[in-house]
């Protein structure tokens, strides 16, 4: 489903974020990308989202290559992804429900189904009672849950969560990880990046990708 072939990424300011990365992620996997801050985790997610294009090598998502010229392809790929951004990227001045629905308006689902999925998603993240609250009036943790609800309401094939535990205390961080893991199923892959490896328990059915200084140093095995 996701394939990196000899991928290197150099930003315009000449910073090299990734070196010769090769990896393959299949459908329905739970993947943790771990490593210290600045290791290249977010760069990997950006490549999957088509926010960056590899300088060398190729990235394929849902069997489609991510290229400079493929804006339409990139948008099609993105419609199958439920992203949970580090800074959430919620739309201010709108309610939680509006934010969740906003991520679905352009998908091929009926208005009735759209509303149903949005309500279900907010319920799953425990925010049904805050669906009419403006997002700027929510706490950090609540805003994050809205971002998760927006991602999962779309019923995506791939959920990408970038540092979802970043600003949370231990209990809340564990809860968020559990919540994200709960959306993984045969059809939905979940990829989570985190530098807080102490939060991850030894999970036999999960895939671990360790990255440091832009290089994948360990894959598949639990190395902590």
């Amino acid at each position: 489903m996701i394939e990196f072939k000899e991928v290197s990424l150099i930003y315009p300011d000449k910073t090299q974020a990734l070196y010769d990365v090769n990896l393959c992620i299949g459908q329905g996997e739970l993947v943790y990308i771990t490593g210290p801050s600045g290791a290249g985790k977010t760069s990997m997610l950006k490549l999957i989202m088509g926010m960056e294009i590899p300088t060398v090598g190729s990235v394929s998502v849902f069997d489609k290559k991510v290229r400079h010229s493929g804006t339409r392809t990139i948008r099609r790929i993105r419609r199958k992804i439920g992203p949970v951004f580090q800074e959430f990227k919620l739309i201010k001045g709108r309610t939680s429900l509006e934010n969740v629905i906003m991520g679905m308006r352009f998908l091929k689902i009926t208005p009735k189904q759209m509303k149903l999925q949005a309500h279900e998603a907010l319920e799953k993240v425990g925010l049904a009672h805050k669906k009419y609250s403006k997002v700027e009036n929510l706490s950090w943790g609540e805003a994050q849950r809205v971002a998760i609800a927006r991602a999962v309401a779309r019923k995506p094939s791939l959920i990408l969560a970038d540092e979802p535990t970043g600003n949370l205390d231990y209990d809340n961080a564990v809860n968020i990880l559990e919540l994200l893991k709960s959306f993984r199923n045969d059809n939905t892959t979940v990829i989570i990046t985190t530098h807080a490896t102490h939060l991850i328990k030894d999970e036999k059915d999960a895939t671990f990708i360790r990255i440091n200084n832009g290089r994948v140093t360990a894959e598949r095995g639990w190395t902590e």
Partner: protein
Amino acid sequence: MRRFFYNLGYFIKESGKIIKLNLLSNIFTVIGTGLILFLLGIVIAGTDIGSRLVTMLNEEAEINGYFTKDVTTDKMQSIAEEIGRMDGVRSTRIVGEEEAKQRMEEILGEEASILELFTDNPFEAFVEIRIDVEAMDAVLDSVKDTEGIEYVRDNREVLEKIKDITYALKILGYLMTAAVGITTLIILSHMIRQGIYNNRDQINTLKLLGSPGVFIGFPYVLTGVILTVLGGIIAAAAVVWLINGAYDSMGGTLLFIPLPPRKELIDMMALWLPGISLVLGLFGSLFGLSSIREKS
């Protein structure tokens, strides 16, 4: 396309929200747009009055053809008709000996008594030919070559001046309309671009969620059109108020300049300004949207 129409209600609501979220800034946009379009309205009205002046000056351009001695009254009529059929001739009219004398008396005023020294009327009948100044040279040649015409008084100097003035007025009108029109487009698109820029985070988030460009851009284009049309309506109201005030104080005439009928001018402004604002709003929004386009 079906999805677009299905989302039409959402687009309208979204435009309302975009306006509400930056209400003060959008109010200023409407006022700014109204002021710019008000200036454009004044220039258009001025150009319209100018073009009427040009037409009037054009219509005043005339030459006189004097007949040979042997020409009878009937023949004069047929010569006038022949000249009337020439390209560049607007109309012809025979001015008889008596009318020619009366005209001179009017010109001389108190000095007209000098004409009483003549026992016979010294004036000759002639054909008064109103011409299109653009075709002046060709008409003069043709009239001079007409059988029964002895000579032509062409007032060339006056005609050349009329030609220069009409040309200058036309160019000035076009230049002013083009200058104000282009400035309006640039300022409007900049204001709309600023509005879109204020919402860049929302636009980028929607892009990251895979939203198609039309879905992202349409509410902004609609917002731009709504704001500029509101500005256009304000400008039209202000220009109509100004026209009414000006006509009331001048009584419908301005020295020798023929003002267009008040209703005609008001109708033109009431129709044109909102219409122009609609087109400018559409192009300004599309230009504003495309100018902040970032990579996908």
